[in-house]
């Protein structure tokens, strides 16, 4: 087992990872940028190394700086969190070359899965159902037309190096294809460093259901149930819950089994999430794999009693999973709401700044993952997530009531600060959501999200 882990991330996930490390008796090193001086993860960690200025490419995405920090402090493992370098095969490889364990899948597996076309191909070979779409990057506008015609409109154009719902373009008819194709290529290049795109059938009203898997280095792969992440705005998740409501259990089982099959097929190791879309007829289609811990992992933890970060670390240390599939018995319902520092009245414009008043919920079966306290600064340099409010209840109505109560307690105020807490409460009260009849169209999507809100 590692004696020291360097956390190559920030904000709420850095603190969350550090807490489990502390519980496991592992020493922690917080690598941080100048922008995150004095933040909770930095204050909590046993050691800290300031690795760069605010800009992510010089700090949290700066592989040399992170490796240097790990080597100088004697950290034998790096936890990459989510985002930043968590899906970067080159970084994973560089860690291994320097004798540091990357807490995540092996580099070649990361390389396959972070290329969305390679991932699609691998999953198709493993027998997972896919939406009609590319098996190669789209060569040019002419090929885009041919492909879209064979798939049938509407289609969605996505970056092969992309993910996180960013930079995608939906096209409803032939006339819109070429402009969307060109725009998608530019976005992809700007966001992900590669202009390669692929095209898929678009399901306008679907449910987004994903499966959590855990795989150890001894060929044991199992699932921890599914999560419904249908409530999204511009493809960014806002509310997640488990189990997926109104999904026939047979379908959920089939998806979970498919995810495990896909994980084994690519030699997955660690914690990972298989994302699917489910259509009106409860048919499911593979979308992509997120080869890392996810933002919404707490809802799975609440219903299973399993600490996913702990399992990630144990797996990376070569330990066999201490439970079998039959031991995984999700119980009850868990819901998470992501509270962002954004102004819903101004098209969700980010409102960075100092948070002077911080009141966050607590109480029965209530968990809050955050990094802010009174006086904290929400930086303009990073994402706008401020707090994840997570509740558990024995059934969905009670979990909903508990979440309404918890959100009602949220007070986050500061000069110019707005949050989405009120907006989330409105969504929770929406009849379609309460009846679990909502789809990805619940919150109107006004256009592409290039990550620039």
């Amino acid at each position: 087992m590692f004696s020291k882990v360097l956390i190559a991330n920030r904000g709420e996930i850095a603190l969350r990872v550090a807490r489990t490390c502390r519980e496991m008796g592992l020493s922690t090193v917080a690598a941080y940028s100048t922008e995150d001086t004095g933040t909770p993860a930095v204050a909590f960690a046993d050691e800290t190394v300031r690795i760069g200025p605010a800009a992510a490419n010089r700090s949290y995405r700066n592989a040399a700086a992170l490796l240097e920090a790990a080597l100088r402090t004697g950290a034998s493992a790096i936890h990459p969190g989510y985002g930043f370098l968590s899906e970067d095969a080159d970084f994973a490889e560089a860690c291994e070359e320097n004798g540091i364990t990357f807490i995540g899948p092996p580099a070649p597996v990361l390389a396959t899965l972070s290329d969305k076309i390679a991932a699609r191909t691998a999953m198709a070979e493993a027998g997972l159902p896919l939406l009609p779409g590319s098996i190669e990057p789209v060569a040019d506008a002419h090929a885009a037309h041919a492909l879209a015609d064979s798939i049938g409109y509407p289609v969605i154009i996505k970056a092969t190096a992309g993910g996180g719902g960013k930079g995608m373009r939906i096209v409803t008819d032939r006339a819109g294809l070429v402009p969307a194709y060109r725009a998608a290529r530019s976005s992809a290049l700007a966001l992900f460093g590669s202009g390669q795109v692929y095209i898929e059938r678009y399901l306008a009203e679907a449910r987004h259901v994903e499966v959590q898997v855990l795989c150890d280095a001894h060929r044991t792969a199992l699932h921890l149930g599914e999560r419904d992440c249908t409530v999204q705005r511009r493809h960014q998740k806002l509310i997640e819950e488990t189990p997926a409501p109104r999904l026939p259990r047979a379908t959920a089982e089939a998806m979970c089994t498919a995810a495990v099959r896909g994980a084994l097929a690519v030699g997955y190791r660690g914690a990972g999430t298989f994302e699917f879309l489910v259509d009106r007829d409860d048919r499911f289609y593979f979308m992509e794999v997120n080869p890392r811990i996810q933002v919404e992992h707490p809802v799975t933890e609440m219903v299973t009693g399993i600490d996913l970060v702990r399992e990630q670390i144990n797996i990376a240390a070569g330990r066999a999973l201490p439970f079998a599939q039959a031991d995984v018995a999700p119980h009850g319902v868990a819901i998470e709401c992501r509270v962002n520092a954004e102004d819903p009245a101004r098209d969700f414009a980010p409102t960075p700044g100092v948070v002077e008043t911080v009141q966050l919920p607590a109480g029965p079966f209530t968990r809050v993952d955050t990094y802010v306290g009174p006086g904290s600064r929400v930086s303009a340099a990073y994402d706008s997530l401020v707090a994840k409010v997570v509740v558990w209840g024995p059934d969905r109505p009670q979990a909903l009531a508990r979440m309404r109560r918890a959100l009602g307690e949220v007070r986050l105020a500061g000069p110019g600060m707005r949050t989405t807490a009120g907006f989330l409460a409105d969504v929770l009260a929406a009849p379609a959501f309460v009846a679990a009849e909502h789809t990805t169209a619940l919150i109107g999507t006004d256009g592409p999200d290039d990550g620039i809100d």
Partner: protein
Amino acid sequence: MSEEERGLFDAVVRGAGELLAAAGTPPTRLLARAGEVSVELEWPAASRELPGEARTTPASASAELCAPIVGVFYHAPSPGEPPFVAVGDLVRPGQQVGIVEAMKTMIPVEADQRGRIDGVLVADGTPVEYGEPLFTLEPATALEPLAS
């Protein structure tokens, strides 16, 4: 005077003006000449104060030169060679004062302002963080009479 002489005279006066502006204390005597060109400034021999030092206010805080990346700090271009700078050295903007090594990449540490090194804060071969102070220097804003 002729136009040419006028031009020359103006140039000499302009030059004298520039020297005056760069000087810390006013001279006791200024001579400007046009024919065969000349500018002379004279300061009392009794004062040992040089224009450069007079310009620097005694209360000015030391500035710091900081590490541009996280890594290991080295004083000299390579082991055994003399260090880039020592206390007392005058440095110019862009002048290399050290190296920080990160993952086998050598990043030069450069002075970002003019001044005199008055402290070396980190020992050779010490790991440093991004932005960690490596040197203190006394900023100099006036023209130094002697190039270092």
